[in-house]
């Protein structure tokens, strides 16, 4: 099976620092792939290399099994993190221009953009200048711009950043729909929670190196259900001294309790219920966020 995107031992250094250190990455066709990591981890550099905007120092980047070229790039839709519109251009002409660079005829792109504008709440605004739209609206225009040439692969760098909650939902729905239509989605983000539910595969990178990758379900399963969620009223400061508790993230009325191996969640519940009024108790898999923190701190130690 050819991969939508494949990076083989890719390395990229800038003048003063190494941004990506020998990265291997495989994005299967049709997957929703999360490229996760904190700011400065090398996500954007990785994506720019995938888009052939910058070349790797060493290593190989393959799109759909081939070395990238112009025609191949026309099959990708790319929304960079640093994004913007020509402020003085009319939305419709802007979209036509961008699609034309991808080889779509103006009449065709005009036909295609209308349903998308409708659906993202921009109906009737296509004759407006970009600078007359709000920031969130501009971002939606960029999203449409990314998919107007009907790409097989979408690379979205921080797609949710700057969107309000409603916009986030609209965007997520659109992305899910594209995924159901068989597109490959590569979504990069530093906010792991927002993409965690959507992605079937993730790669976590930190300092230019891959910390972890694979199917989300597998990653989580490998950690087991080792986390206890408690919501309560009272002073929970004693929780961390209970037997079987490895660590506590105490947020006052809510705590995430990391269990030591072979700890008994029921014993902890019994000990806590004597001192606190428990309103929620749940044994869960750790979040990607927690896994990431754990892996990164392990590396540091």
């Amino acid at each position, binding site marked *: 099976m050819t991969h939508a995107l494949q990076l083989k031992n890719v390395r990229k250094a800038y003048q003063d620092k190494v941004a990506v250190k020998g990265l291997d990455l495989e994005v299967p066709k049709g997957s929703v792939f999360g490229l996760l990591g904190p700011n400065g981890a090398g996500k954007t550099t990785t994506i720019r290399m995938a888009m052939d905007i910058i070349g790797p120092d060493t290593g190989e980047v393959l799109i759909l099994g081939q070395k990238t070229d112009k025609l191949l790039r026309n099959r990708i839709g790319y929304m*960079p993190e*640093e994004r913007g519109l020509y402020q*003085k251009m009319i939305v419709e002409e802007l979209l036509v221009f961008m699609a034309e660079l991808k080889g779509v005829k103006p009449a065709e792109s005009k036909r295609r953009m209308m349903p998308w504008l409708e659906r993202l709440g921009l109906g009737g605004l296509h004759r407006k200048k970009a600078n007359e739209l709000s920031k969130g609206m501009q971002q939606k225009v960029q999203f449409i711009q990314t998919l107007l040439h009907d790409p097989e692969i979408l690379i979205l760098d921080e797609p949710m950043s700057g969107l309000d909650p409603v916009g986030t939902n609209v965007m997520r729905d659109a992305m899910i729909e594209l995924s159901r239509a068989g597109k490959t989605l590569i979504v990069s983000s530093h906010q792991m929670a927002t993409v965690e539910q959507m992605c079937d595969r993730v790669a976590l990178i930190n300092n230019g190196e891959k910390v972890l990758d694979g199917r989300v379900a597998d990653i989580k399963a490998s950690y087991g259900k080792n986390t206890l969620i408690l919501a309560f009223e009272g002073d929970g400061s004693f929780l961390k001294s209970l037997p079987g508790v490895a660590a506590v993230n105490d947020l006052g009325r809510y705590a995430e309790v990391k269990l030591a191996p072979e700890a008994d969640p029921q014993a902890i519940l019994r000990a806590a219920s004597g001192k606190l009024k428990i309103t929620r108790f749940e044994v869960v898999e750790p979040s990607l966020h927690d896994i990431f923190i754990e892996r990164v701190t392990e590396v540091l130690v």
Partner: protein
Amino acid sequence: MNRDILVIAKREFIERVRTKAFVIGTILGPIFMATLMIVPAVMASKLAKSVSITVIDAEGSLRTLVEDSLRGGTATPEKEKPEDPMNARPRNSGTTKFVVKPAVGADVAAQREAAKKEVLEGRLDVYVVLPPDVLSQSQAEYYSKSVTDFEGIRAVDRAIEKAVFARRIGAAGIEAEKIAALTKPLDLKRLRVSEEGEHEDKGISFLLSLILVMMIYVGTLMWGQIVMTGVIEEKTNRVVEVIVSSTTPRNLLFGKLVGVGGAGLLQFGIWILGLVGVSAASGSLAFLSGVDLPALNPVLIAAFPIFFLLGFFLYASLYAAIGSAVNTIQEAQNFIFPVMLPIIMAMVCWPVVMRAPDSTLSVVLSLIPFMTPILMFLRMSVLMPPVWQIALSVVLTLATVFAMTWAASRVYRVGILMYGKRPTFPEMLRWIRQSGG
């Protein structure tokens, strides 16, 4: 040409041509230039400056002669023919009309005091003092609040000189009428020799060529700046990354140059049409009757777009490279001057080339690619150079254009994705040498 370049050029062209600045500039340009051409001509023929002057004569015998001469010459009784208005230079006083005020005061010292006071109070513009020994020493004094009215000063100088000469010749025993006849000034006509024959060149058709040279100069810098601003905008808007994910930075740069250059060419085309129109219509316009407007040289008009585009591509590619390397227009200012230097040098060399258009120095200067757009075109408008020189200059400049756009596209490729620190010139040179991405 690459299809992406065309798509980008089309966008750039349409966006530029649509701006208010373009529309206004296109309309006002010819009006401005027509004004530039017509107003001096009309002024020269219909208006003359009036200057009040007092002659203080310590020598004692010169005052009347000088005053007559300043007033417009009863000293030369022959009535002059009405002159060509473009060449209106009454010989005794240039375009300056003098109003003679008699000196007030008992003696020379008192007259000087009085005249000085009047000048300071603004009731008198000029007074001249002719010392007692003016006939032997040939020295006189000109007093005014400002001494920069060169034409007026020259007229005064000539009037005094004429009076002094007349006195000296008179002292040698020659009659007044003879003196007038003997000292009748010479009228030097300027005739241009060319293949088509000889015609009197009053300097204005030449002025028009100079306007074309100025248009190349201003156009190159202005449209070059527009390219730079566009590049910086794309960078600050962060549009650029989307575009280079669809096409190469090189295509983006070339598309931009072609599109903006096209817009510049369109504007100049409209302007030149306007100029031709004004020239053609001048015969039928009443207020221009008697004002001689020049005909445009068709060879120059054909050469204009070539030299403009050569200059534009050369400088605009450098401007684009700068724009890509910086973050703001303010940051760009530091880099602009070195880029502009050669074209400014070309303007500085202008008088040298104009005085001797076929001297070795002029030939060499006009073959330097960064100066060719200005200086070769200037030579063509002064004295048509040999075809091989024109061809050579175009070929050399074209080669430089290719080299510059190549280098600029390499700086551009790195620069457009660089944010933050402003790079130095050595860093930009390293970007040019760097291979790959």
